[in-house]
């Protein structure tokens, strides 16, 4: 649409359109072209006049274009263009350059009709042909133009003049012919440039693929962009038309075109390699001919194919620091978290949406939905993810929204715990954790539930207690510690208990034994003396008998009998009774007769003590009986 004077447009088989104007040294051919095009513009002007009536006032756009880098002694074009017709154009002084021709004024105009709408653009151009005198950076100040009484300034231009190669400048196209024929990679090469070579995992890199040439490119036969394996990549700029700029590379001037600009993000740590960009470039090469007329009419060309490949680039990807927060899920960048909820006061079975929005610059596309601790009684649906990002040289900028839809099924007050979101902040090289707000949701009884409860048939469904998690039981807090105990078994104390108690046992038994033995001895003595003692008593009793003292007589006889029995049977006198005596005597094999006599005698004596007269036989009889009985017993009891 825009007809640009002095531009050569090629359309190649791979949809690359190469605009290679303004940068070639202007030979005879270009000037001829220029003249041809000017004629074309005159024709265009007529067309423009037809549509003049619909011309619309426009913003004034006044700018200057020129190659950024030129060689000294090289002719180049500098052109001022303005989109509105102006007057009193005032060029700045071109110090450091010599003006060969100019200003040559030309204009172009285009009209577009889309669905009946007419739009029109016009360009007025002031061209200069300059030549640089010596190497250095030269600033060309702004030019001025008056449009409708108002003065506009163009932009200021910087032009770098490098030392030209004399031989080439002298021989002109012939020199470059030679280079083409050698086809060396010095004349054409590609490179992949990255803005940094050491990054953290997840940090963005801008990769730029450029082609540098000093040859006339006819097109690309075959080309392959690096696959960026190990990276996530997104194209930022991928021009369908290549626009060449002149650049100074180590003192030599190349035409440089951007092939592709991508944002790449390493997905793993370690050393990653960006594979080379490879292409087969068709280069137009002039064929020298012997016919001088051929040269004059543009000469003949032939295509030559050159393979180029960029150098592989190594990228060192540092892993993220180890002290990751527990909930870290790989987010890198400068991010912000915000949350919102659509309502906090609902009836049961009404849906609520909680929005978590993460915005900023980082690997937003890789962020997974943060986990929210919803109360277990709430029905939760999978979060909806909405990504709204723009990829630019600044990285992936935008926001990502997670919509959590949930439905509380039971009335009550629920607390939705704040969401923790962690990311690695590239600015501070530290992990950051941001927290969303905490929400409290009040759920009232839903209407649906009330209807249900007022219904005729009401079936209650019982629910099992939900096991929410498994954990160990809590510590015990109320206890006392004790000093560690050694093993009791086999200790001195242990054995001593046995030994001492056994010794006590034996000792007590021995003591008892000897006691028993002693007692037995005493009884024997008493036994031996029993007869004598009783006889002594009986003698005393006979004394009382003679005196006629009845009471004392019987008393003494009883004493003699009881005393004898006590000594003989080893029973204390106090313990004696007629019962146990008769039992003991039977044991000693005393016959019934003797026993009966003894009992009768004791009865008689006891009776006589209180009623002496009633005793038959009198004291003499008793005395004789007692004497007989005791001597008889003495024989039986040993």
């Amino acid at each position, binding site marked *: 649409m825009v007809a640009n004077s002095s531009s050569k447009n090629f359309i190649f088989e791979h949809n690359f359109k190469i605009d290679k104007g303004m940068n070639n040294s202007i030979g005879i051919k270009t000037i001829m072209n220029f003249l041809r095009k000017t004629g074309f513009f005159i024709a265009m002007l007529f067309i423009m006049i037809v549509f003049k009536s619909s011309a619309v006032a426009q913003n004034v756009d006044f700018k200057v274009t020129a190659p950024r880098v030129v060689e000294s002694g090289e002719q180049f074009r500098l052109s001022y263009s303005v989109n509105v017709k102006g007057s009193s154009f005032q060029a700045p002084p071109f110090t450091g350059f010599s003006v060969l021709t100019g200003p040559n004024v030309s204009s172009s105009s285009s009209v577009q009709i889309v669905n009946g709408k007419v739009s029109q653009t016009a360009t007025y151009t002031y061209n200069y042909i300059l030549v640089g005198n010596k190497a250095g950076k030269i600033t060309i100040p702004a030019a001025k133009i008056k449009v409708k009484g108002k003065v506009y300034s163009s932009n200021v231009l910087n032009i770098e003049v490098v030392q030209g190669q004399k031989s080439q400048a002298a021989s002109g196209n012939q020199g470059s012919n030679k280079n083409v024929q050698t086809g060396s990679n010095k004349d054409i090469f590609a490179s992949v440039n990255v803005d940094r070579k050491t990054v953290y995992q997840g940090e963005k890199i801008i990769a730029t693929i450029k082609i540098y040439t000093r040859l006339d490119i006819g097109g690309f036969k075959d080309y392959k962009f690096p696959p960026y394996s190990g990276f996530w990549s997104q194209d930022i700029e991928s021009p369908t038309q290549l626009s060449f700029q002149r650049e100074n590379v180590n003192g030599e001037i190349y035409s440089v075109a951007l092939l592709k600009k991508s944002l790449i993000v390493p997905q793993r740590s370690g050393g990653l390699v960006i594979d080379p960009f490879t292409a087969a470039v068709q280069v137009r090469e002039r064929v020298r001919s012997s016919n001088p007329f051929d040269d004059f009419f543009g000469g003949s060309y032939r295509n030559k194919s050159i393979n180029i490949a960029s150098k592989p680039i190594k990228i060192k990807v540092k892993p993220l620091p180890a002290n990751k927060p527990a909930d870290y899920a790989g987010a890198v960048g400068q991010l912000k978290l915000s949350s919102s909820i659509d309502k906090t006061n609902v009836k049961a079975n009404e849906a609520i949406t909680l929005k978590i929005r993460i915005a900023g610059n980082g690997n937003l596309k890789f962020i997974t939905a943060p986990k929210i601790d919803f109360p277990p009684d709430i029905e939760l649906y999978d979060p909806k993810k909405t990504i709204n990002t723009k990829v630019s040289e600044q990285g992936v900028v935008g926001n990502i929204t997670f919509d959590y839809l949930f439905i509380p099924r039971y009335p009550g007050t629920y607390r939705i715990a704040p969401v923790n979101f962690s990311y690695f902040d590239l600015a501070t090289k530290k992990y950051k954790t941001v927290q969303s707000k905490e929400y409290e949701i009040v759920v009232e009884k839903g209407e649906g539930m009330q209807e249900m409860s007022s219904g005729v048939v009401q079936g209650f469904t019982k629910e099992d207690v939900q096991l929410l998690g498994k954990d160990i039981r809590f510590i015990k*807090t109320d206890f006392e*510690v*004790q000093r560690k*105990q050694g093993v009791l*078994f*086999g200790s001195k104390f242990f054995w001593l208990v*046995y030994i001492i108690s056994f010794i006590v046992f034996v000792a007590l*038994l021995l003591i008892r034994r000897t006691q028993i033995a002693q007692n037995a001895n005493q009884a024997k003595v008493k036994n031996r003396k029993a007869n004598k003692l009783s006889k002594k008593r009986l003698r005393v009793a006979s004394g009382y008998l003679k005196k006629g003292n009845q009471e004392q007589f019987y008393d003494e006889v009883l004493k003699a009998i009881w005393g004898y029995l006590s000594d003989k049977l080893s029973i204390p006198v106090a313990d004696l009774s007629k019962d146990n005596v008769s039992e003991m005597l039977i044991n000693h094999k005393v016959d019934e007769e003797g026993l009966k006599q003894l009992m009768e005698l004791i009865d008689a004596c006891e009776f006589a003590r209180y009623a002496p007269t009633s005793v038959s036989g009198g004291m003499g009889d008793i005395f004789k009986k007692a004497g007989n009985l005791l001597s008889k017993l003495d024989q039986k009891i040993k």
Partner: protein
Amino acid sequence: MRQIGIFLGLMLLSLVSISKEQALVDSANIYYSNSKYEKAISAYESVVSNGFESAELYYNLGNAYYKSNKIAFAIVNYERSLKLNPNDDDVIFNLRMANTYVVDKIDVLPMFFLSSWMQRFIQTHDSNIWAIISMAGFVLAIALLLMFFLSNNIAIRKTSFWIGVLVLFVSVMSFNFARKQKLLTELEPEAIVITPSVVVKSSPVESGTQLFLIHEGLKVTVVDKLGDWREVKLSDGNVGWLKKSDLVII
């Protein structure tokens, strides 16, 4: 007399330091409640290393290890707690939880049911309790036999004789149990593997044939020792050698 004096002195000393240890335990409990498990572990451990213990202390220490994901040490301490109090539900529950993390699943070698009953019965009390039962039983039996020998009353003599014989029997049995428990802990102590994975060798040298692989948290019985090496027996009957440093004795 002098021994009693020393004993009383020790009692007094331990009372003073017990109150100090108790404070340490309380602080550890607070650390645990505030989820500062590492600090809780170091506080509990210092109480243990000061020579104090209790079933609950080991239980709490085990919990703290569990919460810091040191499952093997958690198991060690739960087992120690069970040694002091074999019937605590909480300890048994948590030990089961911890054992779910143990990789090795080992079939326990079946035992004759009588001996397994017997073993379970013996393990209801530790050696010291059995020893005390035995000592008390012996003293009581002596007293009852004395009654038998010294009393004249036939009824007393009869009852004291039979009870005395019964108590003496109990005493002898518990003496045996105490002895058995002590021998088990001394000669065949149980241990827990603390290394994430260990290759068990056929002989106590590095070049020994590799027999089998066991993992952290497994309970084994140490049956023999040689230098730094311990011969262990698994509950499925497998036997092999591994390094002392791979084990912690319960």
